């Protein structure tokens, strides 16, 4: 066995790290292009209504302005596009912050100044806008389906009967706020509509008409959307996105600026048009994690075995597109219970559309469920790890199918041992000066969905093997891990393999989403490597090439695949200020085979860091009149900084899951964030006896909880 045979799973530095630490990796905005133009969008200042007029005279008069784009002069689209992207089509506004015009000029300063001169007049609609979230609103409706696939209403057994007759029962109302992804790289794009390519260009399917350098989770999304909108074949739209400065879901599907920038380029052929959204523009029009209101009730018998899981979700829905997170999903699969009920209700509002954000559904739902489990453990006086162990389901409760693998119990027990989980019988007994100390635990889960096959191509050239596919590295480590997978499958050292990803000039691949990249793309790479060796042997000729697709084991539909984990938190809560400090976080994960410990650890630690940030700080506040976010920058919307993150460590089971395909790897991009807020909230209870059911756990919420809990903090805890 050569060294290469163990390449998979080896600790490797990121291959793109040297470029990134020196700042030389080119992100979307940074590719060198001759004489570019700069686009600045103009956003609506009302939530709904008709545009009665746009006065762009002053903007057009500014020297250096090349174009003011409005619904009056925007190019017509060949096909209707997805509703989110249907901007500059009609003189109407659907949410505050929708793009209603754009200015293109020869400098950023000029474009920004001219954009400030564009005057838009609106006629208010007879009523509305509807922007206030209100569970009692008469327009609230039950949902039949969530994300088109999950049941909106689902009941098994006599939930109410079990709840009424249970030995133990807890019920709580939980709330999670709007969160914004806030990748540090703003949504950016450069579009170049190629100047007249001659009369034959339109009929030549491979003539590139539009090149875009874009920041996305997969080049296939902007390629498909733009080709459809402009009546081009996909082969005529080239998308180049080698490096992406973070995403977390927001760059999964194109947002309106992509359409507007391509439209501007269409009108300015031969000139590269650049856009980088400002931070406030990102808060307005690039999606977010929608708020939820949840009710969870649990019933258990004398031994702590669940008899009922009841999970109601209420959420807003944008009238533009019906995005609802599958928040109650975990309540169908996480624990064994003879009766279960999930129910979703939604209120349609005139607000910008939500979208997937790191672990959509699981993040919000597991906050409620795992807090409720802690409440049940406290109610029973049972160890919270033991309570969870007693409710481990042998098969997936939702589908009845066997687990492909499930190591939740190991995550809980090993994690508790490594972390040193010690909770207090009576909360509030540990203190250091003004700080009350506590520990908490919560489980994590994330489904492993098939997103369809990807293709990978392996070519031998210049003494090296090049693996190419449309895969995307948004910070995950795909550049490195795909090369490692190929090296192992080809049985060569990693330095003989080079990945080429992030371009449409490569075989089709699914986007980096749903934690599917490593096992989905990885399977295609293994298949391609095996086919390559079968066709070309171990001494291939220059230029030898082979392509293959993702292959999952036969019968994969008969099992349920999920990644799992357990989080442990130690917090300190100030009884003076109400501030919560997370002193330690530890996560133990069941992520199948770990392909590269260094990048895997970073992904999991990164998810936990974002979970800590969501637990303590993050909340986008909507203006009650217009529905837009008012704290729309990184001063108003605090994300965890260095000083907030003290000690985060992870471990894992590391057992390959044969149902995940050739890699045996589960997706780990999302499971790391799931359950972190619950673990922290449960630790706050251990520290203080306060049960916080609304994120984020700000000092105000802690102090208010203390106030409403009766006696002063000092009296409670001494």
């Amino acid at each position, binding site marked *: 066995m050569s060294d290469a045979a163990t390449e998979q799973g080896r600790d490797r*530095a990121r291959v793109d790290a040297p470029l990134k630490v020196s700042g030389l990796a080119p992100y979307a905005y*940074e590719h060198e292009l001759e004489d570019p133009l700069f686009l600045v969008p103009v956003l609506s200042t009302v939530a709904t209504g008709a545009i009665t007029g746009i006065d762009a005279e002053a903007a057009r008069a500014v020297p250096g302005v090349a174009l003011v784009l409005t619904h009056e002069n925007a190019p017509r689209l060949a096909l209707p596009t997805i509703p989110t992207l249907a901007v500059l089509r009609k003189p109407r506004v659907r949410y505050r912050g929708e793009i209603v015009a754009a200015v293109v000029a020869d400098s950023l300063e000029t474009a920004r100044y001219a954009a400030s001169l564009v005057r838009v007049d609106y006629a208010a609609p007879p009523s509305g806008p509807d922007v206030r979230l209100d569970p009692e609103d008469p327009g609230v409706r039950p949902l039949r389906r969530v994300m088109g696939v999950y049941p909106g209403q689902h009941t098994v057994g006599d939930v109410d009967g079990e709840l009424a007759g249970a030995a133990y029962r807890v019920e709580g109302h939980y709330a999670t706020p709007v969160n914004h992804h806030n990748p540090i790289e703003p949504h950016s794009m450069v579009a170049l509509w190629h100047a007249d390519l001659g009369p034959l260009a339109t009929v030549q399917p491979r003539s590139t008409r539009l090149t875009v350098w874009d920041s996305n989770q997969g080049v296939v999304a902007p390629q498909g959307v733009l080709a459809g909108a402009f009546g081009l074949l996909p082969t005529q739209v080239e998308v180049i996105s080698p490096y992406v400065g973070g995403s977390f879901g927001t760059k999964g599907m194109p947002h309106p600026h992509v359409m507007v920038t391509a439209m501007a380029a269409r009108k300015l052929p031969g000139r590269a048009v650049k856009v980088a959204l400002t931070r406030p523009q990102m808060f307005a029009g690039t999606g977010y994690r929608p708020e939820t209101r949840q009710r969870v009730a649990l019933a258990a018998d004398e031994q702590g075995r669940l008899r009922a899981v009841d999970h109601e979700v209420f959420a807003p829905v944008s009238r533009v597109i019906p995005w609802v997170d599958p928040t109650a999903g975990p309540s169908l699969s996480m624990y064994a219970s003879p009766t279960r009920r999930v129910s979703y209700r939604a209120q349609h509002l005139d607000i910008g559309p939500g979208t997937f954000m790191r672990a959509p559904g699981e993040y919000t739902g597991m906050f409620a469920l795992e807090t409720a489990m802690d409440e049940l453990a406290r109610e029973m006086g049972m160890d919270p790890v033991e309570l969870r162990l007693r409710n481990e389901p042998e098969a997936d409760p939702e589908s009845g199918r066997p687990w492909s693998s499930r190591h939740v119990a190991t995550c809980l027990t090993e994690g508790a041992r490594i972390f040193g989980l010690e909770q207090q019988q009576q909360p509030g007994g540990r203190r250091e000066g003004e700080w009350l100390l506590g520990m908490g635990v919560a489980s994590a889960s994330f489904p492993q969905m098939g997103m369809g096959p990807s293709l990978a191509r392996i070519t031998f050239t210049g003494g090296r093997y090049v693996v190419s596919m449309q895969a995307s590295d948004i910070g995950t480590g795909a550049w490195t891990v795909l090369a490692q997978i190929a090296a192992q499958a080809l049985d060569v050292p990693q330095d003989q393999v080079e990945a080429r990803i992030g371009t449409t000039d490569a075989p089709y691949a699914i986007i980096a989403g749903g934690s599917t990249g490593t096992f989905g793309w990885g399977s295609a790479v293994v298949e391609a490597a095996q086919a390559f060796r079968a066709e070309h042997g171990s001494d291939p000729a220059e230029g030898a090439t082979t392509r293959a697709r993702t292959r999952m084991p036969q019968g994969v539909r008969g099992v349920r695949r999920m990644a799992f984990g357990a989080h442990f938190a130690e917090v300190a809560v100030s009884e003076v200020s109400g501030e919560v400090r997370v002193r330690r976080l530890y996560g133990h994960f069941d992520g199948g085979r770990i392909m590269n410990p260094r990048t895997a650890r970073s992904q999991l630690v990164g998810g936990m*860091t974002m979970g800590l940030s969501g637990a303590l700080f993050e909340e986008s506040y909507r203006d009650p009149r217009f529905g837009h976010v008012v704290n729309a920058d*990184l001063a108003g919307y605090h994300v965890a900084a260095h000083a907030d993150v003290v000690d985060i460590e992870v471990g894992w089971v590391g057992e390959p899951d044969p149902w995940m395909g050739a890699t045996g790897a589960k997706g780990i991009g999302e499971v790391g964030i799931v359950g972190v807020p619950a673990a922290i909230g449960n630790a706050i209870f251990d520290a203080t006896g306060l049960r916080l059911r609304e994120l984020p756990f700000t000092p105000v919420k802690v102090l208010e909880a203390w106030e409403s809990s009766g006696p002063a903090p000092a009296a409670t805890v001494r």
Partner: protein
Amino acid sequence: MDHAVGGTSHLSTKLVVNGHPQELRHDVRVTLLDALRDHLGVTSVKKGCDHGQCGACTVLVDGRRVVSCLSLTASLDGAEVVTAEGLGTPDELSDLQQAFVDRDGLQCGYCTPGQVCSAQAMLAEVAAGMPSHVTEPGALTDPDTAVELTDEEIRERMSGNLCRCGAYVNIVAAIRDTAARRAGTGAQP
């Protein structure tokens, strides 16, 4: 100052960027960040928020860290500017950059050039005895003595540089390693 296109005022400013003298004729409104990225093609400095809130645009100006999005080019005539590529390039990384690679102190890499520049200057501040919010008041007996570089000091001093991927614990480790190595070899911070 003179008036050129469109009534906007233009100026000439001389900068030394990563060792290369540059003379820039620019709109008075141009920030150092946009001068570097859009006018000089130096994209080893990143724009994350343009409001001084994220630190991605951190560069060294005459050896000190600044957020270049809040610095007007016109105010910097004669300044020496260093971005991440001025500290080291892929073929010749600085010890600090190499530590970021070794400790995986990055994921998407977009905040990274700012983190690296910030850390470089921060270590010099520590060596120069500049206290931070978490420095014990009694710890500084001599103003020219280096502050003891605890992890808490690193985190406090690096808090102007946000990392949304959550590489903080690895960044702190990379800085800690670098400081220890430099102290061990007697190298300048």
